[in-house]
């Protein structure tokens, strides 16, 4: 193994360094499937609740889900940026960046203030993510994904790489399954990550169990429509209306109402059951 290059000087916003404790990077596709997004969010939440600092890249998709999960879990999260710390990319994540800082986490960057997103910044950023983390967890990565650069850097730096399996039909599983067959740790739940981090405390009952509040409570609250939705396979309003034999106008309205309650969310042309209630989205 070659000697690791020194960690670049970091510009920071928020609390840096974060509170002492293990750090896990959660990285993956910028356009994950609903499954990948759900996994990233849940892992982020469970690990953060167990005291792990969640490191990610503030990008769309898996990164944002991991940050949001960590915030939801009441933990600390660090965004390693490919731009200056004062330039949020993508701009739609400005709110998320503020929440990260407000939640006691930090935005860090090796690039000077005002640096704009440049293609060649991101591999270096990916390397830094690995460098400041103890393990790297890859959630959905297609072939050639930037997340694989982070994994490679972690190997180079002698850190553990773990990967979350997916469907063998999905192009987003090619990268992660490749990592697993090359010897990366298999992640089936947050406990697998905690084990890699050698966190001895047993803090979780069943880390990746579906949240207790998603289904039945809402059914009691009045709209059983949500029970016909899945968390990973989006249904369109038309498909749902056909399934429950109701007029589509009513179904569209009730879905909006469920969105307001945070029980349902849009995904592309369809609707998914949201993982948690009462959670607003960026």
């Amino acid at each position, binding site marked *: 193994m070659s000697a690791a290059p020194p960690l670049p000087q970091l510009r920071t916003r928020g609390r840096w360094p974060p509170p002492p404790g293990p750090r896990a990077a959660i990285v993956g596709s910028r356009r994950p499937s609903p499954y990948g997004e759900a996994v990233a969010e849940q892992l982020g939440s469970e690990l953060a609740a167990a005291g792990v600092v969640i490191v990610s890249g503030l990008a769309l998709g898996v990164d944002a889900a991991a940050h949001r999960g960590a915030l939801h879990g009441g933990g600390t999260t660090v965004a390693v940026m490919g731009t200056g710390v004062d330039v949020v990319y993508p701009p739609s994540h400005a709110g998320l960046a503020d929440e990260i800082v407000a939640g006691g986490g930090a935005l860090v960057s090796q690039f000077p203030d005002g640096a704009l997103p440049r293609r060649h910044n991101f591999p270096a950023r990916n390397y830094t993510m690995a460098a400041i983390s103890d393990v790297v967890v890859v959630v959905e990565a297609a072939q050639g994904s930037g997340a694989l650069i982070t994994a490679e850097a972690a190997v180079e730096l002698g850190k553990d790489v773990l990967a979350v399996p997916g469907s063998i039909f999905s192009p987003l599983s090619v990268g992660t399954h490749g990592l697993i067959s090359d010897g990366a740790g298999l992640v089936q739940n947050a406990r697998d990550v905690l084990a890699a981090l050698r966190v001895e405390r047993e803090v979780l009952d069943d880390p990746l169990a579906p949240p207790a509040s998603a289904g039945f409570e809402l059914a009691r609250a009045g709209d059983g429509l949500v029970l016909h939705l899945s968390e990973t396979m989006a249904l369109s309003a038309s498909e749902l209306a056909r399934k429950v034999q109701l007029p589509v106008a009513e179904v569209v309205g009730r879905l909006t109402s469920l969105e307001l309650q945070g029980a349902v969310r849009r995904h592309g*042309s369809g609707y998914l059951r949201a993982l948690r209630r009462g959670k607003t989205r960026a």
Partner: protein
Amino acid sequence: MEGRLIEVQAHAANGDVKFFLIGLATTSMKEAKDRVRAAIVNSGLHFPRRRITVNLAPPEVRKSGASLDLAIAIVVLLASAGKAPPPRSAFLGELALDGTVRHVDGVLVAARWLRRRGYRTLFVPSADADEAALVEGLEVVPCAHLGSVVDHVLGREPIPAAPPARPQPDPLQAIEHDLCEVHGQEEAKRALEIAAAGGHHVLMSGPPGAGKTMLARCLPGILPPLTLDDALEVAQVRSLLGELPARGPLDWARPFRAPHHGVSMAGLVGGGSGVALPGEISRASQGVLFLDEMAEFNSSALQALRQPLESGRVTITRSGGSVVYPARFMLVAATNPCPCGWAGDSRRACRCTPAIVDAYQRKLSGPLVDRIDIKVTVRRVAPSVLSGEPQGEASAQVRDRVIAARGRQLQRQGCLNALLKPARLRREAELEPPARRALERWAEQQGLSARGFHRAWRVARTAADLEGVDAVGEHHVLEALGYRLQDVAA
């Protein structure tokens, strides 16, 4: 649509045998001299061997084309005979060298306009007589040949006037594309019903082959039948473009225009040299303008749609002057969610990079899309639904509800809901307290813009009108909020 009156005067003087044509006639107009002379001679008439001056007034208007041929020939012959032209009459027609009176474009526009100006008799080419006869209260003299027109004017042998058409709206207008032929797509069909009822523009997003075009083609069939005035307006645009059939010129079907995304700005909004001709948006007036693959259209052409969308008219200025054409169309835009078409689909992976999807969707944002009240996603329909019998309602039933809902709007506020500005919306579409709370809560949670807020409000008003109730309830607002797109990249 306006006409322009050209007065043709002729003076026959003693002197050299000459033929002058004056009054800002363009080159194409100057050729009229030779056509008129040949037509007169070949009709067996006598071309005066005198010094003839024909003046076209007013002199500041550029005149071109051949539609004044007949008028010039008649005044020349009347001047040499020392007779006055028939009172309150106008002549339209091109002459062939043998004296045959040939078709000219725009007869219907001229006929309606002349009628409003108090003209009583219009001489038109025989081919265009049916078109002119659509105008009530106008005596239409069909002209086949210069010789017979002269006989008529000089009172030797009158030409029988064309029988007035007295067009009647056709309530049994066949529906060409019926919603009941569309499998599944309940959400999009409902969105179209609301759009038709409130006059809202629609954007459909979905992968190739999902049926967006088919759905759009169904929209004219659920709109109320054209009134006589509207049908005449549609025919006027076609008349200017020379596209009216000679027999049965009035079409009661609402127009459906689907220009290709390569269409030029002039083709879309109107243009051309001299006096601009109507473009696709005017051909679609009173009907539907369907822009498939909207992101592929030239963005300046799309931006040029903004003014017509606001005003229902388009003003085009060219060297020959300014013209105003109607452009009261319903816009139906369709798009893929990304260049490959599969972004956001649960079952199939999209091959576009996020940056490409982002750029594609940015083309779809902005001032034009901001004016589209209803946005709906369309998915490919599962084979099991496709193979079954379509179970939807027939367009005729949907149209009945649309007519009723439009009636409510016109009675209440004199216009369709899509045209309600915020101030009138507050007055005409009061929200019940739970409806207001739902809308405000949504705006707060989702960071809805003021425009988005009013879009949902308008659509909710239409949903209530379709239900036949005065108050806009919570379920109307919630449904209206459902007709929006989610950014795939966000």
